[in-house]
């Protein structure tokens, strides 16, 4: 279905509740609703299987206006429908949409703690990101909150942790510090013998308040801050941010810059997927594969370092273009590196599909059906391993993906093996795309002129990060600083799959199932 007809369908589904319809961009409509109509409208979209809930954005319009807005973004292909609800700032209350969209619980928890919106019947009212000793009634993403260090005595007020409702449950805590996790997150698994009977998640151990910090920095400074959200997909974040801000400013980066952005995104995907193969093999106790894949990953790390000067935060982007050019020497190095990696990747594909001992741990384990992908709104390779194409590069091509398209890799089994195959096959697609870009790199400028102040407006920028769709909602108020930058990383969508799907699995499979979605905690926590 085309984007226009998708939007039309959504409009028709929602007519009963619509107060006002706006079309801010060609692929978006905003539909204004009354708070009480929200569950009905969400259920209508979910019931018609119109896309998935991509994010809930809170928007504080400031004490003068006295309004907080809650934005529920639904995505289907390139089409984005935003349900906008205005709430009184004094006592914002909303009904929950978890009845029809179970994965909304994480976003609702975030909305509650960050904006003080009371979501009346949400299943879990626990904090998700804020620390337990954060003061009650202080909502950090509201405009009148100023970050300030609290005196130690005041921080001693620790919220009581709710008593365990079933004291005879035997829970295994994984995290915040645990060898299975390379970053801090917290999962509580209740087990019966070796079998998991329940799970819950708590994040925020590396929350840095980047969304809030963005509101106090200039557009250019924000880019450097945003690159530091994630150490693995640093480029994807800057890519999404730059695309969004460029769209708001009405500037387009020159074709050569666009191609270089895609090139770096490709190199980043290679490094991320090879890293994932290693980490997952380690979780399964196959350290030899871990060591080999990380050895080969050094090739792409060296390429990134040669090209950008950095192994991790490449900082290739600037608003309106890129910083670094692909010289003949670098092009040659990249070609050779990619050829070597392609040969090695064939070997890894062999290992993960033929090694009997390894298959014992991956085949048929952690199966996610396409129906569950739809229900939980899963994205990225996690969804593609279950046969559902959720790939922004293909569904809503951005930047140079229009001139250098990539094909989307799909597997139907939905188990851990399929996740390995999808990611490894994506490596091949990426190698090919990089080679095409290297052969047909457009000539021309690297940057376009970019204004200091950006016209007022809102935009949504979506980029396919290695882990799935990266979602940026950017609002400008016409000044040299953003009004709001909302970052929704792919891992948070996929966490719900871990929490709901591990039940019934063996404890020994949990690290691998958790690794299967390639979680990135620092991304989530921002």
């Amino acid at each position, binding site marked *: 279905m085309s984007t226009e007809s998708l939007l039309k369908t959504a409009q028709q589904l929602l007519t009963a509740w619509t107060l006002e319809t706006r079309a801010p961009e060609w692929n978006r409509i905003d539909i204004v609703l009354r708070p009480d109509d929200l569950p009905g409208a969400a259920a209508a979209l979910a019931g018609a299987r119109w896309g998935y809930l991509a994010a809930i954005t809170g928007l504080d319009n400031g004490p003068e206006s006295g309004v907080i807005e809650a934005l529920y973004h639904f995505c289907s292909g390139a089409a984005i429908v935003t349900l906008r609800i205005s709430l009184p700032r004094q006592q914002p209350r909303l009904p929950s949409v978890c009845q029809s969209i179970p994965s909304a619980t994480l976003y609702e928890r975030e909305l509650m703690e960050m904006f003080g919106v009371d979501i009346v019947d949400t299943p879990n009212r626990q904090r998700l990101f804020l620390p337990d000793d954060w003061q009650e009634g202080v909502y950090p993403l509201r405009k009148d909150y100023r970050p300030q260090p609290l005196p130690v005595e005041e921080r001693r007020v620790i919220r009581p942790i709710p008593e365990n409702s079933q004291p005879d449950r035997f829970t*295994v805590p994984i995290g915040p510090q*645990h060898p*299975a996790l390379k970053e801090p997150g917290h999962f509580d698994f209740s087990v019966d013998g070796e079998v998991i009977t329940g799970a819950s998640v708590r994040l925020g151990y590396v929350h840095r308040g980047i969304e809030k910090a963005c509101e106090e920095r200039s557009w250019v400074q924000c880019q450097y801050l945003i690159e530091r959200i994630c150490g693995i997909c640093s480029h994807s974040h800057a890519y999404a941010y730059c695309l969004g801000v460029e769209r708001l400013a009405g500037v387009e980066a020159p074709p050569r810059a666009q191609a270089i952005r895609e090139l770096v995104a490709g190199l980043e995907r290679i490094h991320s997927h090879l890293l994932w193969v290693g980490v997952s093999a380690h979780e399964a106790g196959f350290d030899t594969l871990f060591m*080999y894949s990380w050895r080969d990953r050094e090739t792409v790390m060296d390429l990134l370092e040669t090209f950008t000067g950095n192994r991790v935060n490449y900082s290739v982007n600037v608003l309106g273009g890129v910083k670094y050019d692909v010289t003949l020497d670098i092009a040659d190095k990249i070609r050779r590196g990619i050829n070597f990696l392609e040969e090695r990747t064939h070997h890894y594909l062999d290992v993960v599909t033929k090694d009997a*001992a390894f298959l*014992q741990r991956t085949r048929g384990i952690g199966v996610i059906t396409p129906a569950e992908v739809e229900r939980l709104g899963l994205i990225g390779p996690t969804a593609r391993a279950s046969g559902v194409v959720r790939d922004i590069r293909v569904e809503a091509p951005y930047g140079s993906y229009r001139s250098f398209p990539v094909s989307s890799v799909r597997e139907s089994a939905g188990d851990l093996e399929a996740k390995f195959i999808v990611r490894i096959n994506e490596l091949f697609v990426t190698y090919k795309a990089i080679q095409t870009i290297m052969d047909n790199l457009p000539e021309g400028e690297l940057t376009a002129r970019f204004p200091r102040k950006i016209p007022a407006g809102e935009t949504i920028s979506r980029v396919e990060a290695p882990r799935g769709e990266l979602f940026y909602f950017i609002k400008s108020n016409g000044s040299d600083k953003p009004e709001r930058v909302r970052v929704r990383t792919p891992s948070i969508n996929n966490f719900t799959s871990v929490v709901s799907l591990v039940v019934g699995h*063996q404890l*020994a499979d949990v690290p691998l199932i958790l690794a299967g979605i390639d979680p990135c905690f620092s991304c989530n926590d921002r």
Partner: protein
Amino acid sequence: MSDLQTVVTFLFFPSGLFVMLYGMAYEWADRKVVARLQNRIGPRWFQPLADMVKLLSKEEIEPAGVNRLLFVGLPLVGLAGAMTASLYVPLAGLKPPASFTGDLIVVLYLLSLLTICIGLAGTITPNRFSMIGSTRVLTQVFSYEAPFLLALIGPAMAAGSWTIGNINFYASSHWLLLTQPLGFVVALIGLMGKLELPPFDAPEAETEIVAGSLTEYSGRGLALFKLGKAVELIVGLTLVAAFFLGGINNPLEFLLKTLGLLFVMAGISALMTRFRIDQVVRWWRYGALLVLGQMLVIIAWQIWKGL
């Protein structure tokens, strides 16, 4: 045996200090081989010794709520079991320092004593990783103990003796690897299970349960358990090499045969993915059936020979 000789045997050579140091040297060899197979450099030759010295000199943190006697005593009992077992095997290719009829069974039980101590060590702390680790240790003991025992009884039946020295003597003229290949495979893999080497390291799977039943151990207790494991490695290798690889009658044979076995085990460790505990148990069911079948063949053979 004079008193002095007894003291030397017990404390220094071939049991005592020698077997501990030798165990650490083999631990190094194992780590080094696995590291090279995994494209890593691996530790320096004195690393296990350095670890041991460091652990022994460190503070031992005793978790709240444990029984102090058990917490301190279990590593000692485990190590003592392994050390005692080392008295009955032909260490360094010498005649076993001690011997009596049926010592094979006693050695096997002394080796299990260490494993059971490790299992118990997990249950006395309130740590949840330790608890799960202990369950897995004990599950694994029950699954591999019987096949391992049966596999080692094969050579005993062929030799017609329950004394390790006699079996070793018999095996010196018969390469039982050739006549009892199944027994050899099961014994080797059983040894890997006993030592909790990958892929049978589910009881201490770090990505699931941190360090399993030894999670709460630090300092001296951990050092003693590790030392016990090192001694167990030597005793186990010596037993399997003596029984299946043509006996051990001189130091050179001892070195070559045990080291050869160690390399095979290191290779298997590097090649495999960790088995889940249920998969381990399933594997051993087949292992037990295989050796049982082989035992029947041996019995039939002996009856036929006796006729």
